[in-house]
């Protein structure tokens, strides 16, 4: 297969979230004949590499339709995912976008950190024939459906629960907040940007939804039965996390497990993930290194969204601009996702699948 003849139904732009993954991936593609490179050696070169496609993916819908996609890696340094490096990273994302457009992708999803381009300003792409999505709508759907399902499993009544949303003013955090405000006893909202947080709190207060807010999650944690983290979790401690709390780690990278080693009495799952019942095939097969999940065919919600839109041939700017995810769109994309056999992923965390 080569890029002159290959069919392309969608593309996904992304980045790796840990040097451990990058090192495993690079040494995997070096093969067994060459000696493994140390992480330090790989760090010397990795982030210089311009964005490029790493593998193709064939995805099967349970309706019988098969589509082909492409994953484009931005080679953003996993240690530089913070806002401090936004300018450098933005350049990489824009280059990756131009690469997927050149390769003829009719719809491209911008996964993880790369979605900031679409959440901020659509102008550079508004005249493009190619269409884009952050994939945030289906990610939010998988988070919400995950919370509802896990709460049911654990016999937690949502209407009697305080739900803490960390990263509440982000695109996915806002979607979760507006969906769950109708279901929870009270929302506890946390975000770093206090201006936006106060604005959101004012909006909810005027709608008469019970809520509290703080820029520090530790202030709110003792009163939370359910916690959703949609923010990058590197700076989150969760020291005051109550016993038996249900936690959805939907941030990027998903490393809340590391913060909770002292507190084993919680129910944590990696949220925002889907599972493709019809299966998918990576070409070449890098699933041993960069798509390691404890269950087969598990995939991020953002990539699932591009797959669903490609199955439906709905080549449109679906999830774009922050704060535009509605409950109707969440239900629509989730329904379409289920139609093609892309369901909520089984519950798992760093230790593996949840016990039955």
């Amino acid at each position, binding site marked *: 297969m*080569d*890029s*002159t*003849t290959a069919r392309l139904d969608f593309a996904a732009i992304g980045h790796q979230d840990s040097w451990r993954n990058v090192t495993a991936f*690079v040494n995997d*593609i*070096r*093969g067994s004949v*060459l000696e493994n*490179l140390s992480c330090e*050696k*790989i760090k*010397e*070169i990795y*982030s*210089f*590499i*311009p*964005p*490029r*496609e*790493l*593998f*193709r993916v064939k995805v099967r819908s349970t309706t019988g339709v098969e589509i082909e996609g492409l994953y*484009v*890696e931005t080679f953003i340094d996993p240690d530089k995912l913070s806002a401090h490096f936004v300018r450098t990273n933005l350049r990489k994302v824009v280059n990756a976008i131009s*690469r997927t457009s050149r390769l003829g992708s009719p719809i491209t999803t911008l996964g993880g950190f790369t979605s900031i381009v679409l959440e901020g300003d659509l102008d550079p792409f508004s005249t493009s024939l190619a269409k884009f999505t952050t994939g945030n709508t289906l990610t939010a759907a998988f988070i919400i459906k995950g919370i509802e399902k896990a709460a049911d499993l654990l016999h937690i009544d949502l209407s009697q629960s305080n739900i803490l949303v960390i990263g509440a003013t982000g695109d996915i955090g806002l979607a979760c907040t507006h969906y769950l405000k109708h279901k929870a006893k009270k929302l506890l909202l946390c975000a770093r940007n206090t201006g936006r947080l106060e604005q959101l709190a004012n909006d909810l207060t005027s709608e008469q939804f019970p809520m509290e807010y703080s820029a520090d999650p530790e202030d709110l944690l003792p009163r939370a039965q359910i916690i959703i983290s949609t923010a990058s979790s590197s700076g989150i401690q969760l020291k005051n996390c109550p016993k038996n709390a249900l936690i959805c780690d939907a941030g990027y990278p998903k490393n809340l497990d590391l913060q909770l080693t002292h507190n084993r009495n919680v129910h944590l799952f990696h949220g925002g993930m889907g599972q493709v019942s019809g299966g998918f095939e990576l070409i*070449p097969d890098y699933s041993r290194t960069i798509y390691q999940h404890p269950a087969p065919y598990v995939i991020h919600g953002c990539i699932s969204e591009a797959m669903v839109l490609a199955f439906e041939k709905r080549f449109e700017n679906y999830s774009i601009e922050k704060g535009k995810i509605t409950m109707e769109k969440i239900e629509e994309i989730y329904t379409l996702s289920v139609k093609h056999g892309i369901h909520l992923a089984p519950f798992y965390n760093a230790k593996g699948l949840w016990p039955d």
Partner: protein
Amino acid sequence: MKIIRWYENTLSPNLNNTTMESVKTKTRTVEEFNVISDIFSQAITGELIGMSNFASLAETIDDPHEKMEAVEHANSERMHAEGFLAYAEKRKLRVNINMGGEYWGNIRRQFLSYARQQDFTACLIIQEVMLESFAISMYNDVGHALGGEAGDLFIRIRDEEKEHLDHSGDILRGEWIRNPLAFENKFEAIHFNCMNILAEFTATTDLRGHCGVCNGECMKSSLHHIGLDIVTLRGNALALYAEAMDNIGIPGEKSMVWIARLPA
């Protein structure tokens, strides 16, 4: 740190009076002098390798127009070498030219093996994509680090080399479109024959010993004296090489594997 008597005049516009120019004088330390001498030694040797490669290529070509173009390219590389040499002589740099050193010699031998087979495409890939990508990127970094007359020289030659890269990119893209798989297989083989040498040459430590061009110890450990480091130089060069492959049409999933399999 010892300051040697070596001055470089750099012209910079006087913002208060556009009709006049102020002259800045910059002194250089012994360490800077040594590393700049080694950089010019590498640049001159590299240009002479390029000149020789094109001259060898000209011998293998039957088409008179292509033959003349190859000679013209050889002359262009000769003029670059002359330009570097003239500056080095003016500044009394310690220039050491060695086309038979460990890395340059191996690259030359690789080129000749393809030239003997009259493989014009392979020769173009080695000289115009692999060597020029590294030259353009490194001349750019060195030019900006040195500034002044030396910097201007590197930037001017960078621009001329970039024209070569762009021109050859168009030719090679045509070759790729004709038969992508055959072209990619050929490129892959050449990549491992030649880029392995360049990767070893530009690794943080010389993986095959001394290059035979630097005057003393490997200059890579001294680049910080002029505000450079080998990790950035090599990273930028590999990035430009990757972009050159993209422009030809080589799929990223292949070029990524080829880059990852280079010595580091």
